[in-house]
């Protein structure tokens, strides 16, 4: 199956291992990976800050870049959600609305793609230890991908997955919120870490590098012995 990877800017620049794991995992599942070099960012930082004009330029660029893809797969619930929002953002803008719709229709978050399109639930991964999973807000509430990550994690050999208390509460990232509203963000991420500690997890797993950068960055600052992993990395462990 031909998969066009939208790796996201965060992975391209800061979390290269997540990108590598995504490629290796999908290839193992029989996919051929294509990577349009022109890809940049989905436009979310500008869009969520109210800079719609600037965001739309980025979005048009991404629509053009991914025009010929069969399936677009991305290791981020939030960036997938942004692609899905494009038709709404270009509503009434005839040609672009149509092109945005075509882009949205073929966009999948990584775990969603594996479970719903590839119809695979056990990717043959192995990781020893106890983990808890952070359900990121955009992926769960806006994209509606709730079960796929759990389905895949359940089949990881050696891994015990325990529910995260108050999982529905945001981790406090929220893009520019994390810097604009630092003191509030700090309280939110601290509560999230307390919940992770409460279940004594060795690993905190997530499917969004934004949330993971926030939670992971705070965990590191506080020197907590919790390892933060993207779900692609977990599923690529053998």
């Amino acid at each position: 199956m031909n998969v066009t990877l939208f790796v996201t800017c965060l992975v391209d620049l800061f979390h290269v291992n997540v990108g590598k794991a995504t490629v290796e995992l999908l290839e193992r599942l029989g996919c051929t990976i294509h990577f349009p070099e022109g890809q940049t960012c989905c436009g979310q930082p500008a869009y969520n800050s109210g800079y719609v004009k600037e965001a739309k330029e980025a979005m048009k660029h991404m629509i053009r870049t991914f025009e010929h893809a069969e399936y677009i797969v991305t290791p981020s619930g939030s960036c997938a959600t942004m692609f899905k929002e494009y038709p709404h953002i270009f509503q009434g803008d005839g040609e672009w609305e149509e092109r945005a719709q075509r882009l949205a229709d073929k966009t999948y978050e990584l775990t969603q793609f594996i479970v719903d399109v590839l119809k695979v639930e056990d990717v043959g991964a192995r990781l020893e230890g106890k983990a808890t999973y952070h359900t990121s807000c955009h992926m769960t509430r806006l994209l509606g991908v709730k079960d796929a990550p759990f389905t895949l994690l359940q089949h990881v050999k050696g891994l015990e997955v325990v529910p995260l208390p108050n999982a529905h509460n945001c981790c406090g990232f929220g893009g520019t919120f994390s810097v604009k509203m630092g003191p509030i963000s700090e309280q939110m991420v601290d509560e999230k870490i307390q919940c992770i500690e409460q279940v004594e997890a060795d690993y905190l797993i997530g499917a969004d590098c934004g949330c993971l950068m926030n939670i992971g960055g705070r965990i590191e600052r506080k020197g907590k012995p919790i390892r933060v992993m993207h779900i692609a990395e977990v599923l690529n462990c053998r």
Partner: protein
Amino acid sequence: MALKINMGEFHERVEKGIHNTFMRGAVAGAQERLRTRRLEAAEELGNWEEWRALGEEIRQHTLENLDYYLMQLSENVKKRGGHVFFAQTAEEANDYICRVVASKQAKKIVKSKSMVTEEIHMNAALEKLGCEVIETDLGEYILQVDDHDPPSHIVAPALHKNKEQIRDVFKEKLAYTKTEKPEELALHARHMLRHEYMTADVGITGCNFAIAESGSITLVTNEGNADLVTALPKTQITVMGMERIVPTFEEMEVLVSLLTRSAVGQKLTSYITVLTGPREEGEVDGPEEFHLVIVDNGRSDILGTEFQSVLQCIRCAACVNVCPVYRHIGGHSYGSIYSGPIGAVLSPLLGGYDDYKELPYASTLCAACTEACPVKIPLHELLLKHRQTIVEREGKAPISEKLAMKAFGLGAASSLLYKLGSKIAPTAVNPFTTNDRISKGPGPLKAWTDIREFPAPEKERFRDWLKQRGNE
């Protein structure tokens, strides 16, 4: 209390909220209880998403035809012997209410909870006239007794206070001598209030839903005080926001079902009272005179704009009860009687951006509010629209942010610039990097690294790795 609560600058209020350990514990506990109860009540009712869709449709239809239904309501109230006054501003509403009160030579007024009377600052206007205004909802009563402490939640206004604090307030102000047991506290308030109902000249209430087809008003309460406020005094004044109306009893029933479940997880509240006009011949109680004050106060300016859906709100506070930001900062941080996500959307519309420009940013856009709203107001999208308005129309965004976003726009729309920028990024931040980590970031990174570590950009980007590997 007016819309605005004067408690310092936004960031000071937040700081104060964050350090109020008691309040945060109370809010977190209440959020968890109310969220669970709401979900259980929705589950028990079944087909919750269909109910929400119906609620949304009713509210949208009513707002689209608001002029028609307001006219119908007004005619029907008059037919039943009531008086109707349309107030465009808070001042007009207060003037009218004061005129009615003065004409009755009223001295004592009992009041049942109403957010809109808080919004228009009605109590102050009546007190200026020399009247005593007594709040009769337990929560509001506590706040009033405690030197007019502002409400911190639209359904549970005294959520930020614990029973020991309430006991102390009662001891100091009401000669209370018993313990902090809620039953004893409530009983004392009840004794104090009972006498007031009997001797009040005017009763003032808010209105959950006015029913256009019959000219009735609906009050949804748990304490029964609204019934006393409307049954005993000779004159009743009901104040409603102009959007709080339904076409018929049928729609009222749907919205009440959504309201009680969303607000407190109850199938029904203890009292759901529908009142139509003044007392008629043969009726045993009710006021001799009934006045309905319909308040605009900025609402009609929202109609027909991209923010219209905020007027769908039925004031259940489900969005407040799931908001992770409200959870940590509490209601007073919003600086408005309307707090939480609905407050963050509504306050800038009613009170302007000068006082409330921070509120649209006090959200991670996590959409918990949108998911909880029983009438499907896209709250997080409206917060985004506020941000857009602040940037594009109000021009209130900081210059550094504008420049950064401009640069982002250029970089993300051009593969060449993006590639160049991402290539030089590791070198650019190299002076700040130790062990692939940035602990004390420059410029915009500082706010991040004040709290967390920031990963240094990797020397080999993902795209470089992929290229070397031979993928295209």
